[in-house]
């Protein structure tokens, strides 16, 4: 299908179905009517937002458009093709992301820029590729579309970071499709630091071949209302998918995470560790669906969602969903919602650590389990600092 037809079908789907409502099972706890009821503009401006490049490979999108001036695109090694998705349309574009999703349809119909990354067979790119999406036009809608494909045995690390100006409302609606060929490894990070009054939605969908590895770390700090849909399809034996996440929410932020892991074949692993810290009147939804199809014997799937509530007004809905059609599998899940451990706080106090410091230490320790899993040292340090900054902000 060509791009024109793909876009037309998506637009038709969106026109026919519109946005989901809370009557839709998958959207029961997240009311997107504030997005549906807003008219977004397509005005464009250059952005003055600051960002910190995490790598010598950095693509910067200013209010939805790739900025060659701010990006660092030169000198990629052979076998690495990186650029605007408008210049590289892969025939597989749109074949992976869930076509039934209103948000994916809106993106497919409306995207005007995004990243294309193709890594040739056997090429291992050690330096991360940092994608920065800056948003500082109030009332605008952005539909970034990213496409990542790596060849057999290839390797890449991609960091998507979304940064917004404080206190403005806009809508980011991103879609990222990831094709990981046999024995390939994609480490994908998503850092969401949108404005606290912005809408942020993203679908990340990855397909894994034999012995392929896909990891996704989603760190959510910003956004007023938003959702991540992170979906993995294990279609080759020996595949491994890791989906970890940390959401730090305060004020009236609402954030929803929907994971969907589809074990279609035997001998694959999936690990999901999601942690949330919520203060004030923040709300979070975690829905982790794991589908183990009939042929997916010896599946090893582990899911954990732990939440720390710093305030009585904060609320979490956590919903594990295991659908298992194979008989020889290992699937575990667990979910907790709790407050800081008073006994641990007392223990710290008996060593001279005051309660304010003690609470900060225990809260950081809670988040640290997710950060500890991050392999890239530069990304890890950067995220550790963001988490510290957030904790300082909420402890004031």
């Amino acid at each position, binding site marked *: 299908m060509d791009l024109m037809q793909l876009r037309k079908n998506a637009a038709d789907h969106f026109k026919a179905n519109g946005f989901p409502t809370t009557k839709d099972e998958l959207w029961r706890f997240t009311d997107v009517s504030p997005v549906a009821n807003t008219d977004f503009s397509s005005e464009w401006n250059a952005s003055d937002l600051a960002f910190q490049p995490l790598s010598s490979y950095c693509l910067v999108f200013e209010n939805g458009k790739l900025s060659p001036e701010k990006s660092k695109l030169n000198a990629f090694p052979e076998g690495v093709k990186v650029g605007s998705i408008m210049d590289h349309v892969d025939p597989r574009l749109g074949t992976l992301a869930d076509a039934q999703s209103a948000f994916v349809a809106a993106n497919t119909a409306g995207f005007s820029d995004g990243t294309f990354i193709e890594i040739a067979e056997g090429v291992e790119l050690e330096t991360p590729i940092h994608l920065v999406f800056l948003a500082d036009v109030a009332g605008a809608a952005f539909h970034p579309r990213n496409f990542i494909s790596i060849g057999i045995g290839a390797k890449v690390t991609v960091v998507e970071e979304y940064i917004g100006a404080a206190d403005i409302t806009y809508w980011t609606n991103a879609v990222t499709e990831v094709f990981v060929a046999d024995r390939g490894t994609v480490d994908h990070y998503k850092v969401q630091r949108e404005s606290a009054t912005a809408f942020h939605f993203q679908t990340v969908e990855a397909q894994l071949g034999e012995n392929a590895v896909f990891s996704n770390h989603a760190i959510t700090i910003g956004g007023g209302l938003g959702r991540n849909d992170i979906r993995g399809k294990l279609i080759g034996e020996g595949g491994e998918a890791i989906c970890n996440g940390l959401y730090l929410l305060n004020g009236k932020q609402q954030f929803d995470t929907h994971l969907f892991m589809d074990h279609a074949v035997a001998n694959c692993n999936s690990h999901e560790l999601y942690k949330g810290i919520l203060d004030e009147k923040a709300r979070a939804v975690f829905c982790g669906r794991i589908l183990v199809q009939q042929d997916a014997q010896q599946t090893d799937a582990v899911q954990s969602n732990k939440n720390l509530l710093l305030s009585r007004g904060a609320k979490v809905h956590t919903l594990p969903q295991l659908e298992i059609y194979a008989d020889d599998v290992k699937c575990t899940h667990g979910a907790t919602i709790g407050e800081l451990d008073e006994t641990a706080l007392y223990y710290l106090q008996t060593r001279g650590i*005051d309660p304010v410091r003690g609470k900060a230490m225990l809260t950081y*320790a809670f988040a640290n389990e997710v950060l500890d899993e991050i392999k890239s040292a530069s990304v890890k340090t950067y995220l550790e600092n963001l988490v510290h900054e957030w904790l300082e902000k909420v402890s004031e």
Partner: protein
Amino acid sequence: MALLEIKNLHASVAGNEILKGINLTINPGEVHAIMGPNGSGKSTLSNVLAGNEVYEKTQGEILFDGKNLDDLVAHERARAGLFLAFQYPVEIPGISNMYFLKAAVNAGREYRGEEQLDAMDFIDLIEERKKVMNIRDDLLERAVNSGFSGGEKKRNEIFQMAMLEPKLGILDETDSGLDIDALRIVSDGVNALRDPERGFLVITHYQRLLDYIVPDVVHVMVHGQIVKSGGKELALELENEGYASWVGEEGI
């Protein structure tokens, strides 16, 4: 001046009176042992001294190093030099032992108006103190008490005491769950810290620990009161005769 002076201390938990008039004075350099059957209030006393807010002091006075403990909350008592080695040390996943110790040591230094230890000085201090307690490097890197064996947890408590150099060390059933080798290491650690300026309150159920940490004074605690005090020979007497003559026919 006495290091610790407890006068007519009454304390309760959830409305139940556990301590019913404790009087106890520890002078600098002295090691006092409190022995008593289960449920006599030994652990309540250590928690009241450390400032655990679950326990409510209802009557009496506690002076520590000349300060009224009513005026100090738990972390201030610790900074002022009071240390409690827990019967059940708390596991804190996600905080490394090193990071925790550094925060604790520097909190005390800040209170005393001393400069904060930098990373190098801190490591020097660790290297010096860890030998006595036989603390391996991996225990320092691991999260506080997380996944430690019973013996490792107790050694870690005494190691923390060695790092923090308190004026008064309270050992709450530190011997419980220890085999003879671990008991020896823990006792050696405590004995190395004995000092003419420092006092200890050793709470134990068994006389065995007092073979290694030899006390100056032994107190017998029953039903929330100290019913007898004497020299170290009192511990042996208890070992032979038990607590029956104080507990009475109704038991505990």
